[in-house]
C-alpha cells in the first residue's frame, strides 16, 4: 500500500500543465471501439438518432485500424482494463474470448425488437458458444468471384453461377492481355493470416485440404495442400498481376477499379466498391459464387464484424441498449432512409434479404447471401477437423502461426522458394508451434 501511495504521490507531483485527465463523471457514457470502414463510419454519423432515442446514454468513439484495434482490445480485455464498453471484434475472436470468460452473453437484456432469431444462422453460429450469443453481427461477409462481363464476353466464355477452379483458371488465361495490362485473375498474395492466409485456407477447403487432423497434427505435408498451392502458384504465374506477392484487399481493389483485373476473388463487401462511383468498370461487373473442385466445399470464407461487450465493462445495460440499436432490424431502415438501401450493412439478417427495396437497390445482394449460406464454420472442410472457422482455426495460436505460414506462401509466390519448400517449412513451423502450445 505504501508503494502505491508513493507512486500516486509521485504521479501527482509530476502534474506539470497536464494533470490527470478526470475520470468520466457520467455513469452512462459508453466507449465504443471500432474499425475504420464505410459501414462503421456511417454508424458514427447516425449516432444522433441513438442519442435522440436514449438521451441518458452518451457515446464516445475510438476508431482504429484493424490490426491496431485488435492489439488494443486484446491488451485491454486480457488485463480486465475496462476501457471499452462495446468492442468491434471479428468472428475469429468471439469463440476464443467467450471461452475465456471475457465477453458478456447477449441472450438476455437486449431490446424487445432485437429479434435474435432473424440473424442469419451461418453468421450467428460463428458467434455462439454453448447456445449463448456473445456478439451481435454488424455486417457479415463471405467471398465470391467478381468478374468483368465485357472481358468474359470478349474471351468467348460465360461465367456459371457456381464455377469450378478449372474454369476460373482457363478463363483467367483467356482474359489475360499483357499488352493492355489486363491480368486475368487478381487474388491476395500479401502475407498475413487475414490476407493470403484467409484466401488460401478457404481455397484449400475446396481442394480437400485442412490445417489439422482430428489429433491436431499439421497437414501441410498432405497431397491436398500440395495440389492447392501448386494450382494457386501456377494460376497466378500464368494470369496474375506483377508483384502479386504484395497485393492485399486494397491493392487488388485498386487494380480492379482501374480495369486491370479480369476476375477478382475476395470479400463480398467489395461488391459495392467495384460498382461504386470510384470504379472505372462499375457497369461491367458480374458476380459468381467462389469456385469449387467438385468435393462439396466452396473456396469462400465467412466473416462478420460484430459488437460485443467485455465482461470488464461496468455499463453493460447501456452497452446492450446500444448494440440493440446498432444491430437491430430498425437500423437497416434508418440507414436506408438517410443514405439509401444499397448502403445498409449486409449479411446479418434474414429479413434484409426478404426486403424487395434492398434486393432492387443492391444487385449483389442475392450472391452475397448465397455465398454466406454456402459457408459452414462448424464443418468447414471435406475431411473432419477438430476446429471451427472457415478461413481460420479458432484457437489463440492460429494468428501467429498463420502469419508465418502466410509468409512462406507469399515467398513462394514471389519466386523465392518452391511450393514444396514453402509447404515443408509451413509443416515444420506449425508442428513446432503447436507442440510448444501443448497440443
Amino acid at each position: 500500500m505504501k508503494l502505491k501511495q508513493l507512486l500516486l504521490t509521485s504521479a501527482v507531483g509530476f502534474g506539470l500543465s497536464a494533470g490527470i485527465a478526470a475520470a468520466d463523471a457520467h455513469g452512462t457514457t459508453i466507449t465504443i471501439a471500432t474499425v475504420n470502414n464505410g459501414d462503421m463510419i456511417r454508424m458514427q454519423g447516425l449516432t444522433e438518432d441513438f442519442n435522440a432515442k436514449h438521451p441518458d446514454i452518451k457515446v464516445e468513439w475510438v476508431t482504429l485500424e484493424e490490426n491496431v484495434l485488435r492489439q488494443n482490445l486484446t491488451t485491454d480485455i486480457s488485463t480486465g482494463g475496462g476501457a471499452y464498453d462495446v468492442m468491434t471484434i471479428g468472428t475469429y475472436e468471439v469463440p476464443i474470448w467467450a471461452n475465456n470468460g471475457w465477453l458478456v452473453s447477449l441472450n438476455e437484456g437486449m431490446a424487445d425488437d432485437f429479434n435474435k432469431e432473424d440473424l442469419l444462422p451461418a453468421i450467428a453460429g460463428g458467434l455462439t458458444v454453448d447456445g449463448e450469443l456473445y456478439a451481435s453481427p454488424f455486417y457479415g461477409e463471405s467471398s465470391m468471384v467478381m468478374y468483368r462481363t465485357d472481358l468474359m464476353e470478349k474471351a468467348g466464355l460465360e461465367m456459371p453461377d457456381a464455377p469450378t477452379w478449372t474454369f476460373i483458371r482457363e478463363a483467367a488465361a483467356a482474359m489475360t492481355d499483357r499488352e493492355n495490362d489486363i491480368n486475368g485473375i487478381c487474388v491476395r498474395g500479401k502475407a498475413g493470416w487475414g490476407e493470403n492466409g484467409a484466401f488460401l485456407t478457404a481455397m484449400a477447403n475446396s481442394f480437400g485440404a485442412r490445417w489439422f487432423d482430428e489429433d491436431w497434427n499439421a497437414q501441410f505435408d498432405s497431397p491436398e495442400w500440395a495440389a492447392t498451392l501448386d494450382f494457386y502458384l501456377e494460376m497466378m504465374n500464368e494470369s496474375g498481376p506483377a508483384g502479386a506477392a504484395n497485393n492485399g484487399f486494397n491493392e487488388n481493389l485498386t487494380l480492379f477499379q482501374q480495369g486491370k483485373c479480369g476476375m477478382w476473388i475476395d470479400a463480398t463487401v467489395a461488391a459495392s466498391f467495384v460498382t461504386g462511383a470510384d470504379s472505372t468498370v462499375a457497369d461491367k461487373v458480374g458476380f459468381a459464387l467462389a469456385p469449387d473442385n467438385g468435393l462439396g466445399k466452396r473456396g469462400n470464407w465467412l466473416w462478420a464484424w460484430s459488437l460485443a461487450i467485455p465482461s470488464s465493462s461496468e455499463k453493460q445495460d447501456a452497452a446492450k441498449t446500444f448494440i440493440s440499436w446498432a444491430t437491430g432490424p430498425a437500423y437497416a431502415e434508418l440507414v436506408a432512409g438517410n443514405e439509401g438501401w444499397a448502403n445498409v450493412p449486409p449479411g446479418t439478417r434474414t429479413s434484409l434479404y426478404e426486403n424487395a427495396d434492398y434486393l432492387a437497390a443492391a444487385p449483389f445482394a442475392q450472391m452475397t447471401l448465397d455465398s454466406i449460406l454456402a459457408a459452414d464454420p462448424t464443418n468447414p472442410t471435406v475431411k473432419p477437423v477438430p476446429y471451427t472457422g472457415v478461413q481460420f482455426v479458432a484457437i489463440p495460436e492460429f494468428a501467429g502461426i498463420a502469419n508465418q505460414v502466410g509468409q512462406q506462401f507469399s515467398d513462394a509466390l514471389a519466386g523465392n522458394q518452391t511450393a514444396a519448400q514453402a509447404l515443408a517449412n509451413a509443416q515444420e513451423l506449425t508442428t513446432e508451434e503447436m507442440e510448444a502450445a501443448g497440443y
Partner: protein
Amino acid sequence: MARAITTQKKVMWTALAWAFGLMMFFPILWTFLTSFKTEAAAISDPPVWLFFDWTFENYAAVQERSNYPKALMNSIIIAVGSTLLGILIAVPAAWAMAFVPGRKTKDILLWMLSTKMLPAVGVLYPLVLLAKWLGVMDSRILLIVVLMLINLPIIVWMLYTYFREIPGEILEAARMDGAGLRSEIIYVLTPMALPGIASTILLNIILAWNEAFWTILLTTVNAAPLTAFIASFSAPEGLFYAKLSAASMMAIAPILIMGWFSQKQLVRGLTFGAVK
C-alpha cells in the same frame, strides 16, 4: 586548376545534397498532394501530379469525423511535458556523470542505453497492469511519464556529451566564488550548455510527438494524441488514401513547422557541441 576542381566538387556535392534532400522530402510532398485529391485520383494509374481537381473535401471530412484540436492539444502536452520532465531529471544526472564520474559511470551510461534495446512490447502488460492499478490509464500524465522514461537515456547521453565539453575549471571557479551546487548548475552550467540543451529538447519533442506504440495502446478517448488520430483513418478494406493523407498532413504540420523554424538551432546543437 585547383580552384576549378574545388568548384566542380562543390557543385557535385550540392547537387547530391539536393537530390538526397528531395528524396527524403518526397513522401511528405506526395502525401501533401494526395490530401487534395479525390479518392479516385489518389489511386489513379499513371499517377497525377499537379493537374487534378484540387479539393478540400478530405480535410473537411477529417474535421467532421474527428476531434483534431483535442488530439493536437494532447500531443503538445505529452511531447512538451515528457521532454521538460526528462530535462529536469537528466540535467543533474548528466552533471554528476560528466563532472564527478565514479568508477561505474561508464557502465551506468551503457546500461541506460541498453534499456532502449528492449522491445517495447516486452513491458506492455506490466505497464498496463500498473497503470490500471494506479487508475491512470488513458491519462496524459501516464504518457508524460512513460515517454519521459523511454527517452531519458537519449536525453542523458546527449546532455552528458555536451557537458563533457565544458571545462570543469569554469565550474570550479564558480564554486570558488561561493556558488552552491544549485547555483552552479542553474547559473553557470545551463547557460553555457544552452545550445546543447535546446537541441536535446527539440529532438526529444520530435521523438515524443512521433511515438506511436505507447500513445495508441495506453489511450482511448481522453489522452489520445495525433498518432491515434492518424490510426483512425487507416483502413485495410477500403480505399481512403486521400483522407488518410489529409489526416497525416494535419498531424505532422505542427512538428514540421517547428522543425523548419528551429532547424538552425537543431543542426548547430547536434553538430557543434556545447561551447564551440
